[in-house]
């Protein structure tokens, strides 16, 4: 048949002058079949199937991010069972989203590790992450893997209650130009991305400007410029180089807008941060590869804080009527990490490696010194995954860590995943991790010094006088989980118990307290705070996440978490302040007892799709700056239309957040959430 066709062609050609000389370059070469190829999906690029993973994982992919209609990155974590997300417009380094898992919620996400492409963005000063200062555009994110539970063996120190691992797209996947716009309630975001290619080099650069006017009746607007760039260079079939650079800078408002505020009044400060990162990946074979990564990151916030006129309190003896505080903070981090992933035989996969880190901090107000403080961290880690039989997968690993503050520690973990039947897996695991005290907890010496014209009289109010010497917090998390695949329905549920010890708690310094030599305590002011290793706590509960594909066009994601915290309020001992001097709020209510969320998405046709989200969070009383907030219920709706114009693909969407304007509160009673509406436009050309 084919030969006859060819013969016909041949005869046709023989009679016409079409039989041109064949040039070899136009021909498909045998190399396509027999030549080498770069090792692309190397063993370290491949993620474990969720059924074999050692911990509970929630994977958020690009589609989910798009469909959820989020405007700010932290909002996406509302879809993770057991996670609490709140907007906070505080007054001191706290105009930030609160993201916490299993309680101990405070203004910082101190008990979770957050990584972007293997780079830790966990800040050593307060712990946690300044979400709006991250040099990342939502459009560049490929997926987010949230580990629910400690995972120090894989992600390092401070991978305590959970780990958020953000992975950006490979530069080869972001070719061409894109424009992304968001307009609406107090928002005006403009992003442009260009991705290009030069032989084996793929690169992209994303620039953006974000205008965020913040919450109603709060002083919390943000102006942000973002630049982020990534280049992926395929040096040989076995070597790949990756370079990243990012910048985030702009102005941030913060401050206490209440009329009785004396200091940390509404003001605007400038922040900037940037990072440079390089990674070399070498693949020895499809089953063994090595990576070496190094990065430097820097962040700075310029904040000059002024008090109200203090003459009303002190009379005319002041050297200056107002108090000025230099509240500049500078963080710098250098980190280098080597990792070898290999699979010596089919059923065994191993990772091991080590890293070194240097953090340098200058924070004159907090540390009562203009000197730069350094913190060193070294770690060695290893992890093995063994498919013991077709029904049993065992995971085991450990991290050994040494740091300047708390010395050396080991965090081991182990788990077994047993397949009851195809698509039905039971996982039993135990995992441990440590959280190193933050600078806030270990070294804060925040004080207000009021000089007077009277010789020898200088007033002082010490806000913090950290006693130091804290031990790291410890967690031992046990769980039993079940993963079920019922065709169109996927279930992931677990019962857990997190046993935490040495929990670091804020307290008043022990009595008797006296002001430092040479200073006079301002009469009537409270004693300073310090931090102590407090009591133990147990967090127990149940989590469920499910995905139900109702049809090929309709999908329902739902999750539910029930979390109870148990522990003793009282801490006693010779060095500890009496219980009445502890902060009155206890951590028992620092997690919402019940959280439920659901996202229903439907595609009407290739052009129209819509999603409906519902979030319900029961009462929560956050620690630190937080105040109790009652049950919050809100629904979001997103409708999107895709379109195509000659060489441009686009999507226009309309988003309504808090559709029924329930005026619920997040984190503290001053963060009142009304209805917000946005329009977004994306063009790819």
């Amino acid at each position: 048949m084919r030969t006859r066709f060819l013969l016909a062609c041949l005869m046709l050609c023989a009679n016409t002058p079409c039989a041109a000389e064949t040039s070899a370059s136009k021909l498909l070469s045998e190399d396509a079949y027999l030549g080498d190829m770069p090792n692309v999906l190397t063993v370290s690029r491949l993620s474990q199937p969720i059924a074999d993973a050692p911990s509970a994982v929630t994977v958020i992919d690009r589609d989910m991010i798009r469909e959820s209609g989020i405007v700010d990155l932290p909002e996406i974590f509302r879809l993770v069972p057991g996670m609490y997300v709140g907007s906070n417009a505080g007054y001191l380094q706290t105009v930030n989203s609160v993201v916490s898992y299993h309680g101990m919620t405070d203004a910082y996400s101190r008990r979770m590790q957050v990584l972007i492409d293997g780079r830790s963005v966990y800040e050593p000063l307060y712990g946690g992450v300044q979400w709006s200062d991250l040099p990342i555009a939502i459009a560049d994110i490929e997926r987010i893997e949230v580990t629910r539970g400690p995972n120090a063996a894989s992600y390092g120190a401070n991978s305590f209650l959970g780990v958020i691992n953000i992975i950006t797209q490979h530069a080869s996947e972001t070719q061409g130009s894109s424009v992304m716009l968001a307009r609406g309630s107090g928002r005006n975001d403009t992003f442009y991305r260009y991705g290009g290619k030069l032989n084996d080099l793929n690169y992209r650069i994303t620039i953006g400007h974000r205008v965020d006017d913040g919450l109603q009746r709060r002083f919390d607007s943000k102006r942000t410029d973002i630049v982020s760039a990534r280049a992926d260079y395929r040096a040989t079939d076995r070597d790949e180089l990756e370079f990243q650079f990012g910048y985030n800078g702009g102005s941030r408002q913060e401050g206490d807008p209440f009329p009785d505020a004396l200091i940390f009044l509404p003001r605007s400060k400038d922040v900037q941060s940037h990072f440079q990162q390089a990674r070399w990946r070498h693949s020895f074979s499809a089953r063994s590869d090595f990576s070496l990564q190094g990065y430097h990151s820097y962040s700075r916030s310029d904040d000059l804080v002024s008090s109200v006129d203090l003459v009303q309190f002190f009379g005319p003896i002041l050297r200056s009527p107002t108090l000025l505080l230099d509240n500049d903070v500078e963080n710098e981090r250098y980190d280098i990490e080597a990792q070898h992933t290999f699979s010596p035989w089919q059923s065994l996969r191993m990772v091991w490696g080590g890293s070194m880190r240097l953090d340098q901090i200058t924070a004159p107000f907090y540390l009562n010194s203009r000197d730069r403080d350094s913190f060193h961290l070294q770690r060695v880690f290893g992890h093995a995954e063994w498919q013991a039989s077709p029904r049993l997968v065992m995971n085991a690993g450990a991290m050994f860590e040494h740091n300047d503050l708390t010395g050396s520690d080991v965090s081991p973990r182990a788990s077994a995943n047993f397949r009851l039947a195809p698509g039905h897996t039971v996982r039993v695991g135990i995992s441990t991790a440590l959280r190193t005290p933050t600078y806030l907890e270990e070294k804060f010496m925040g004080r207000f010094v009021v000089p007077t014209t009277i010789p020898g009289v200088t007033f002082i109010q010490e806000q913090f006088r950290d006693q130091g010497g804290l031990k790291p917090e410890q967690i031992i998390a046990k769980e039993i989980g079940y993963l079920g695949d019922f065709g169109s329905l996927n279930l992931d549920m677990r019962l857990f118990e997190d046993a935490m010890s040495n929990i670091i708690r804020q307290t008043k310094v022990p009595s008797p307290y006296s002001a430092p030599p040479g200073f006079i305590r301002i009469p009537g002011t409270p004693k300073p705070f310090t931090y102590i290793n407090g009591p133990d706590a147990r967090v127990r509960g149940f989590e469920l996440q499910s995905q139900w594909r109702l049809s090929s066009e309709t999908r329902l994601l739902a999750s539910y978490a029930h979390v109870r915290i148990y522990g003793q309020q009282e801490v006693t001992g010779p060095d500890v302040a009496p219980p009445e001097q502890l902060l009155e709020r206890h951590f028992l209510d620092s997690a919402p007892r019940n959280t439920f969320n659901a996202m229903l998405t439907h595609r009407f046709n290739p052009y129209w799709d819509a999603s409906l989200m519902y979030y319900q969070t029961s009462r929560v009383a956050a620690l630190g700056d937080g105040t109790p907030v009652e049950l919050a219920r809100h629904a979001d709706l997103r409708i999107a239309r895709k379109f195509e114009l000659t060489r441009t693909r686009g999507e226009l969407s309309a988003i309504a957040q808090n559709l029924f304007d329930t005026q619920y509160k997040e984190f503290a009673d001053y963060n009142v959430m009304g209805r917000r509406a946005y329009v977004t436009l994306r063009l790819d050309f």
Partner: protein
Amino acid sequence: MAAMTLRHMVSIASALGLVICLVPLTALAQSRITVLITMPTPATAEFTDRLRNELDRASGLKVNVVTEEMLSADRDSLNDDSLVVAVGVQALLQASKLDPRRSVLGVLVPQPSFDKILVDSRRNPRYFSAVFLDQPYPRQIALIKSILPKVSNLGVLFGPTSLQSSYLLQQASQASNLTLIQENIYATDELVTKLRRSLETSAVLLAVPDPLVYNRETAQSILLTSYRYQKPVIGFSQAYVRAGALAAVYSTPQQIARQTAEIIRQHLNKPQTGLPPPQSPKYFSVDVNRQVARSLGIEISDENALSDSLQRIERPLP
């Protein structure tokens, strides 16, 4: 030196034979096999060694290897009337310029390239044939069916070259009740967009060789993007599987050599009928990337069992 002289003598003798009988292809004259290689690679060496082995063992035939340099330095080195086995596209292109009455069998060549060379050289298909590198589409579909029995559709990206045989794939997938989700790519910058569009709807991506769509450079984005969509890619070579495709059915140079030896022996028995029509590889292997399979949560039986079952599908037991 002695070899040169001998070859010279043979050349003269065969030239005489050509002049005298004007019937070029006789069993006697083709007792020698000339393997034409333009660029020595591990694959060509593997092929030649195996071919030599097969022919020597079975029929005592000697294989004469001629390289491009030898050919250009001394055109006489091919100037006998042996059957020319051209290894690779370049060699086939060279061989197509030889005396039109000479029998040429192309091996380790993709079908689109053979078709083009045949058309452009206006050679007589009776004396110009090939064993392709391309696996027949029904075999590839059978592989997909056996490792992913539940899939109902199949995504394919065609480029200008592979588009010529798209109707064959349409037939093969129809026969197996698979819906073909086809995207045609005419320029490199369309690749990512069309790849994504295809991955949004298709359950598995079948890679079909095309210089524009599937090459060393595009392998990276195709494999990464497909993996991001958690969709398996069925490759066309062992290297593609190593790079990150889920599986591939392919033929090694040795397997092609075995088939080539069979064709040569048959041909020498009945030279007057000319060469058999171009054919797909008869012997093949299946390779599976276990790491990828595991990560995608796909369970696949042993490679040998898979290729046995594909053999059985093609040649059902009586």
